[in-house]
């Protein structure tokens, strides 16, 4: 029972992080932009969503949309710093992340003065999010978790499908080109800076959505919820792509989402051992290092049998290269 519950918890958390991982897939994998602003953007999405639910009384879906907008704004700001002011990728992320700490603190004051954690259940009249009353009225604890999994699955799938659709469009092609080779974008008569900005806005928006879903799911908004989220997202992306990325017909969005779920399961089972949560970050760091060390070499090698299984034919190097759709 404990095992099942932990697995469900992990799945729920993983679906939430899947959205984050897909956001980082856009910025990190496509645009080669290790976006540190995630650490500020994630709680911002949470606080914007909570304000929308609690202070403005908006429906939860609208709260999610607002958090997308706030995240896109952060992405645009970081893009401006990098593209227009020529500040390096890493530093523009750090600048935005640092500034956002104050922004989220100030916004939290709209929820409760002097506090940095807001518990939905303690708020009089309640916060009408996706994961609490009236939606979950009368649900047992496990039913609530299952319901959470279902709602987050819908969101993760929607984000995945929309991203897949986007990457099949001309704008999506151009975004991939901008990450791969800026000069080619220029020779196509397009401004690579503008394309990058759009990509960072898309990615930032999804980070905001993930932060908003995370706060709603946990029924609490925590100002420090951004800490360590970059590592979580990067682990999910790198592990997902190296484990599942080479399997035919598995899109990279699916691969990074699966990476996020796998990693969250590992996290949840680790907290069973590490009750106090003291070693959680150490676990994160060690896991990240392990994924980086193994990711590029051995994992790919070991998943050879998976590729064979999914492609339904023996995979020869030459054969794959000349395959035509």
């Amino acid at each position: 029972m404990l095992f099942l519950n932990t697995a469900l918890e992990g799945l729920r958390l993983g679906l939430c992080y899947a959205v984050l991982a897909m956001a980082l897939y856009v910025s990190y994998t496509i645009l080669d932009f290790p976006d540190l602003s995630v650490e500020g953007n994630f709680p911002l999405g949470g606080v914007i969503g909570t304000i929308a639910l609690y202070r403005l009384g908006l429906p939860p879906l609208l709260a999610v949309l607002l958090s997308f907008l706030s995240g896109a704004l952060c992405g645009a700001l970081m893009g401006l710093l990098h593209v227009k002011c020529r500040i390096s990728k890493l530093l523009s992320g750090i600048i935005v992340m640092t500034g956002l700490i104050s922004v989220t603190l100030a916004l939290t004051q709209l929820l409760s003065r002097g506090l940095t954690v807001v518990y939905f259940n303690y708020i009089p009249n309640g916060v009408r999010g996706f994961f609490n009353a009236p939606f979950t009225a009368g649900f047992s604890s496990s039913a609530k978790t299952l319901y959470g999994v279902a709602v987050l699955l819908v969101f993760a799938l929607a984000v995945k499908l929309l991203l897949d659709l986007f990457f099949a469009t001309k704008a999506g092609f151009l975004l991939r080109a901008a990450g791969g080779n800026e000069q080619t974008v220029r020779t196509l008569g397009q401004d690579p800076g503008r394309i990058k900005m759009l990509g960072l806005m898309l990615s930032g928006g999804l980070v905001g959505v993930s932060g908003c879903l995370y706060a709603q799911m946990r029924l609490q908004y925590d100002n420090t919820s951004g800490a360590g989220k970059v590592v979580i997202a990067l682990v999910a992306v790198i592990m997902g792509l190296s484990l599942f990325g080479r399997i035919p017909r598995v899109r990279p969005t699916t691969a990074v989402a699966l990476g996020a779920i796998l990693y969250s399961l590992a996290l949840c089972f680790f907290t069973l051992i590490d009750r106090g949560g003291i070693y959680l970050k150490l676990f994160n760091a060690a896991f990240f290092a392990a994924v980086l060390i193994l990711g590029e070499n051995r994992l790919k090698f070991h998943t050879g049998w998976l590729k064979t299984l999914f492609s339904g034919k023996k995979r020869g190097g030459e054969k794959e290269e000349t395959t035509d759709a």
Partner: protein
Amino acid sequence: MLELSHIRKTFTAGVDSVRVFEDFSLSLDAGCFLSVVGSNGSGKTTMLNLICGSVLPDAGRVFLDGRDVTALPEYRRFARVGRVYQDPSAGTVADMTVAENLALAHNKGRRYGLTRALPPSALAAMREEVAGLGVGLEDRMQVPVGRLSGGQRQALALLMATCTPIDLLVLDEHTAALDPKNAELLMKITDRIVREKRLTAVMVTHNLRYAVEYGDRLLMLDRGGIVLDARGEEKARLTTDDLLPLFGRISIECGN
């Protein structure tokens, strides 16, 4: 079609400054295929960069198709200019497939919006198009460009640069990274495309034979100046043997 008028360009790095052009002018008629030779540091590549807007002149003006484009940023100029680089990895996107690269190139000059980039119906026409290059790309449409040979990649870059209407094709030592056989093949393809599409082209090359054999005007540059400008009959009669003494002299003066 192309006009460079009284260009002055100095590159400064710290206290060192190198004057590449003092007062450089060049005008090129529509439909002309110009080959440019010259030793290292003669200003060939700078000339191309000035044409494309990759570097801006200190003084002077650049005209393309009668329009003053001196202040136009590089990416805007490329709307009507195609360029193939020396580096095979520069003109194509390595992680994208041949078909995806071509789809991007075919849309040049139009909006990159939210419509489908690569409908399956477009593949057949694309395959036919690359088959015309004769480098075997038609069987590798779904292969990421990074896995192609240098020759295939340059041929694709050339096709991408010329598959939409352009005013000027710029070839920046585009055969230099290839082995002699592939370089020869790419030159033949280039010549055919330029003739078929009646393009105006500027080709910088280190290969004197290519400069003599291809194109209908030849320019030799040395230290920012034109030392030879042969066209029409004169160019047709020109042989590598005529060029070598002159080229040898400027190369020796420059120390290579």
